[in-house]
């Protein structure tokens, strides 16, 4: 059976009668008041009220009780009440006077202990009673103390109380023997019980007899306590403070600085026998600092007892706060106060026998309640507003409260909250939103970001060229390059050192072939580039398409050395295929890097021949002459990459390659040409579309349940905190972090190559080819659509039912040309033949396509990037197309 149950089952009356009738009940007495007495009470009450005025904030209940105690001697009652509300210090040091006053009327004398010095310890007995009540269900108070002591921060507060009690040893023990002691304890306790309890002022009265009862019974326990608590006086208090400080951990230094000084001053002011009261006051004050009388019941009781001290204590703390430099010390004090309040709450609930034993607010609630009660002191909740409440509240109370929550390590709820914040995606905080479109248009002048894909036949030297360019532009350190050179030489591929900058997998390095798109970034004087180094090998064209679909501009690298250009350009070479592909994927601007020209001694005729052949071909692909520029380079030597080749470096080149604008200068280098690429208009204000090119667990900010998605934003914009939806699947998540070009950013817009960290969507939901969309406008998912195709040069004609691999963005899926609707003339759009049996090479046709699995597509007219498709068959690109209608 739990102790709570034991308490609930306790028969109050039994307990009471077991004790005998030695303990008359004040409350009962008041209940049994005769009519005459009641009238007297009324009269006396109004007298007392008038005498006290309203400044004390003493409640009617207490007044009545005091009056009853003094048997309607209103003058004595006023004196007592004043003294209580006034200087408790003086009261404590003037025991004798108090005793005299208190026991003067003593009606009816039989129920009052005669001249009992223990009675002098009114406030102390209150504490003791509480303490005893708390220990009711414990094997002994020592045990209770111990168990409470195990609670880190609580230890400080408890020790203070415990040692205060030990200081009272003698007076408390004395009345223990007397049968009438219950009455004394009872009367005092009833006063205590009448003190406000924030939660249940009305139940205070019924609880009173029980508490008193306990006080009577627990005297032996008190003795134990007295024995258990060693020492007395200022020293234990200091220790207690230090203990509390230890428990507070991080704020330790501040505590040590603040506490001893304030306590020392305290002790100086309340020396000798008053030390106990001072200790209690310290506890109360600490709680008060946490939330202006926020500590519940026990604290409030203690606070009432030492009400006079409060102001001074608060002032002291205020002073201490000032000396300690404010917030930190306050946090410390608050933390301690909170802990104390917790400790009090705990020990109180153990001793409580009323029906609230089970729905006692959690320590958290108490602190929160205290916080809310703090600044205005919410008098309505407290039948007896505490003097402290009238003081100017510590200004940053709410902040303190929060801090105290944070410092209190045992606060499970706060932890849970923190966990929840990590686990569940929350809608973005309003007010933190950035108007990305406005931001973008503001900075448009500076936004010069371009995605550059490098294409060309295998072994044309794409990776070496770009690796060398990155090195020349300072993106690769000398040390790294030295290491590459050394390692490359070791495996007999010394000439591949520059390519290793981009070819990072062991496979790529050992085979000397780029297999997948490598992403990097660099800047020229007026442009920032995201570099996509595509593989040239025909088997990796799908990867190349993935890279090229993310590009705005391209560099086509051709090998100028004898025979190599021809093998890459004629027949099955990838020079043609890549050029066609990048054009079909929406790249208009092209720089042709005529590489390895040093192999043919920078021969101008060779260069001109290559340029002539390419120009004709590229024009046929749909590139405008003005958008295609040529540059002779040597990727391996680094000639004409980042700076114009000086005459001494490549004499043969310098002889004929001059700047057309200024023949005195050498011709423009690769970086010069890149620098003059035009930046296309970005569809920033359209709904977000981010095609997933790659995804992986975790990311820059960490968090096991988040997924990083890399790709290029096709349209729209995204910012940290945005809700996004993943298509297909429709799962929603929240953007936690954004990386643009390997640097963290708050937002990103169309055209940016990003890594976006999304939380709230399981990694299983992602596939390459998924699209991250704005939640209110997701992309269409379809397995059937209509497209216009430009057929290249397929080895066999395209028929109805022809199968092929459909490439869109980074995705490739098996697809079938379900039906050829018609062929039409590319220029005029005139229909040549309806429902032809097959499409021959070079034709344009409208077809219906179905895919094996649904894919994310958009009409070309709505979103160019996502409305483009490529059809490949047996490793050859057979057609490119645009989506004109989406079915179902």
């Amino acid at each position, binding site marked *: 059976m739990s102790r709570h149950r034991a308490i609930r089952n306790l028969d109050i009356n039994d307990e009471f009668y077991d004790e005998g009738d030695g303990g008359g009940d004040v409350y009962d007495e008041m209940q049994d008041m005769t009519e005459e007495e009641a009238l007297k009470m009324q009269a006396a009450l109004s007298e007392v009220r008038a005498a006290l005025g309203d400044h004390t904030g003493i409640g009617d209940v207490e007044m009545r009780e005091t009056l009853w105690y003094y048997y309607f001697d209103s003058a004595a009652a006023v004196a007592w009440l004043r003294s209580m509300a006034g200087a408790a210090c003086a009261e404590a040091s003037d025991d004798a006077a108090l005793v005299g006053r208190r026991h003067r009327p003593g009606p009816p004398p039989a129920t009052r202990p005669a001249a009992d010095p223990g009675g002098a310890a009114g406030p102390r007995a209150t504490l003791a009673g509480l303490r005893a009540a708390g220990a009711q269900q414990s094997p002994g108070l020592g045990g209770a103390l111990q168990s409470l002591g195990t609670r880190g921060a609580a230890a400080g507060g408890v020790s203070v109380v415990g040692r205060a009690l030990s200081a009272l040893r003698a007076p408390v023990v004395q009345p223990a023997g007397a049968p009438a002691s219950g009455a004394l304890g009872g009367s005092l306790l009833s006063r205590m019980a009448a003190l406000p309890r924030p939660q249940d002022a009305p139940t205070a009265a019924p609880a009173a007899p029980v508490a008193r009862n306990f006080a009577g019974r627990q005297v032996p326990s008190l003795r134990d306590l007295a024995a258990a608590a060693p020492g007395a006086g200022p020293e234990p208090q200091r220790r207690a403070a230090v203990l509390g400080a230890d428990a507070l951990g991080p704020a330790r230094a501040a505590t040590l600085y603040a506490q001893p000084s304030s306590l020392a001053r305290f002790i100086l002011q309340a020396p000798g026998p008053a030390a106990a009261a001072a200790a209690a006051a310290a506890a109360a004050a600490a709680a008060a600092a946490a939330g202006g009388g926020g500590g519940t019941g026990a604290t409030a009781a203690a606070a009432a007892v030492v009400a006079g001290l409060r102001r001074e204590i608060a002032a002291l703390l205020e002073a201490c706060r000032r000396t300690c430099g404010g917030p930190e010390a306050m946090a410390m004090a608050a933390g301690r106060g909170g802990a104390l309040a917790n400790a009090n709450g705990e020990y109180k609930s153990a001793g409580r026998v009323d029906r609230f034993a089970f729905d006692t607010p959690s320590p958290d609630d108490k602190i929160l309640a205290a916080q809310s009660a703090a600044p205005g002191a919410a008098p309505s909740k407290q039948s007896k507003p505490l003097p402290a409440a009238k003081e100017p509240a510590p200004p940053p109370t709410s902040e303190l409260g929060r801090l105290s929550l944070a410092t209190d390590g045992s606060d499970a709820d706060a932890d849970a909250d923190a966990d929840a914040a990590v686990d569940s995606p929350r809608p973005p905080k309003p007010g933190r939103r950035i108007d990305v479109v406005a931001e973008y248009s503001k900075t448009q002048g500076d936004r010069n970001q371009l995605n550059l894909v490098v294409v060309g036949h295998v072994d044309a030297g794409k990776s070496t060229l770009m690796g060398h360019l990155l090195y020349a532009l300072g993106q690769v350190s000398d040390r790294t390059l030295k290491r590459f050179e050394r390692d490359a030489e070791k495996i007999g591929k010394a000439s591949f050192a520059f390519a290793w900058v981009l070819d990072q997998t062991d496979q790529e390095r050992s085979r000397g072939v780029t297999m997948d798109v490598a992403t990097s970034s660099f800047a020229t004087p007026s442009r920032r580039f995201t570099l996509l180094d595509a593989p040239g090998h025909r088997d990796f064209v799908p990867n190349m398409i993935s890279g090229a679909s993310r590009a705005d501009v391209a560099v086509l690298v051709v090998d100028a050395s004898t025979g190599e250009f021809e093998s890459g350009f004629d027949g099955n070479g990838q020079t043609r295929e890549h050029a066609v592909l990048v054009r079909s994927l929406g790249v208009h601007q092209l720089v042709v890097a005529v590489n390895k020209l040093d192999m043919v001694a920078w021969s101008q005729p060779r260069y001109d021949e290559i340029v002539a052949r390419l120009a004709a071909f590229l024009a046929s692909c749909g590139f405008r002459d003005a958008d295609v520029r040529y540059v002779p380079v040597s990727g391996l030597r680094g000639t004409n990459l980042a700076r114009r080749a000086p005459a001494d470096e490549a004499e043969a080149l310098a002889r004929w390659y001059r700047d057309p604008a200024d023949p005195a200068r050498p011709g423009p280098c690769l970086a010069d040409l890149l620098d003059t690429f035009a930046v296309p208009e970005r569809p920033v204000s359209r709904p977000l579309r981010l095609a997933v090119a790659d995804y992986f667990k975790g990311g820059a900010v960490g968090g096991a349940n988040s997924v990083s998605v890399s790709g290029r934003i096709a349209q729209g914009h995204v910012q940290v905190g945005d809700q996004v939806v993943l298509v297909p699947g429709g799962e929603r998540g929240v953007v936690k972090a954004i990386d643009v070009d390997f640097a963290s950013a708050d937002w990103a817009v169309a055209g940016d190559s990003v890594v976006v960290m999304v939380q709230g969507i399981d990694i299983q939901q992602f596939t390459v080819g998924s699209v991250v969309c704005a939640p209110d406008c997701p992309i269409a998912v379809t397995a059937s659509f209509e497209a216009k195709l430009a057929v290249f040069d397929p080895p*066999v004609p395209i028929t109805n039912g022809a199968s092929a691999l459909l490439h869109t963005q980074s995705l490739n899926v098996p697809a079938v040309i379900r039906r050829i609707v018609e062929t039409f003339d590319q220029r005029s759009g005139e229909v040549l033949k309806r429902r032809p049996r097959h499409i021959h090479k070079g034709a344009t046709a409208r077809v219906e396509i179905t895919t094996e699995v649904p894919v994310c597509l958009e009409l070309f007219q709505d979103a160019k990037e996502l409305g483009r498709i490529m059809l490949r068959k047996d490793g050859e690109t057979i057609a490119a197309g645009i989506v004109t209608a989406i079915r179902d």
Partner: protein
Amino acid sequence: MKLVAQHIEKDQSGHVRLVPQEPEDIWHAYNLIQKGDQLTAVTTRGVKSVSSTGSVTNSRVKLKLTIAIEDVFFDSHVCALRINGRTVSESEHVSVGQYHTLDLELNQPFTLAKPEWDVIALQRIRDACDVARQADAAAVTMHEGLAVVCLMTQHMTVVRQRIEAPIPKKRRGSATNYEKGVQRFYDQVYQAIRRHIDFALVKVVVLGSPGFVREQFFEYMMAQAVRTEDRPIIENRAKFLLVHTSSGHKGALEEVMRDPQTRARLADTKSAQEARAIDAFYQMLASDSDRALYGYADVAKAAEHGAIGTLMVTDELFRAADVQTRKKYIRLVEDSKASNAELLVFSSMHVSGERLNQLSGVAAILNFPLVLDSDPEPSDSEEERDKE
């Protein structure tokens, strides 16, 4: 398949008794059994009997039933065939006209009665009972992140497992995620091979991929096999054949069949023949489009002219539920046979059969060019097929 008895009358009606012996025979049975036929087999049925006192007892009884077939369902993955229909034979437990679903089981004889045994059905029985068994093969097509493990028998290509493993791309500064992903992927493929390929039955295992994936995977697999002493893999090292394909999708099996190495090993298998034929068709279409026709309307016209050199039809057409459609195609086959055309019935379970299916299911290479002047509007049936 074992042919136990055959009674076919002069009007082509009659019945045959067959015993399926291996999973592929179930596929043959699927191609034979059609709506409207009658099937007799031993089956079990839950019988509910009500006694005179009104108590109900349920029992399962084994009984021989004949049903008039209404529906046939085939599951290619487990080679299971379920036939649904009304009973026509009297039985003490089941009254005539009650529905029953038969499961065809291996080594359980069944009797199939057809009102008309056509050439295709008879050819099917001959094929099914052909004891000269061809080599079974396995093929794994793969590219980074995708692998398809298939088993190829004479008439079927069954995908045993499709492995899709996310492989993070290489990123600037680190390729470890990529390499880990690749290792995980290879391990999955290796486990799939161990699980699905029985080296006692399979003569060759083709590994097809673009790039270096096949070599890399083969190295990985052998290293793993040696490390874990995986005897079957080590001993059958010679059965692996590495072939270039352009992707890892199932469609790449076509390229596998086209590869000279595979051809040498699987020369006479049906799938290799089919692949060759469909390639020839496309080549003809590219070189002389008037000598390659597809679609029922065109091919039927060519048949009228006696122009057909090779006729390619998928078995799917002969499984058509509609008797008229079936008869139409059978007439086409018989007509072209009359003009000495070579007939190839493609298995729709093979990749080439799938391809032919998409190409309307029927195609022909002509002996001489035939210019069809008619408007190439598709026939109604084709429209219907498209809609499906």
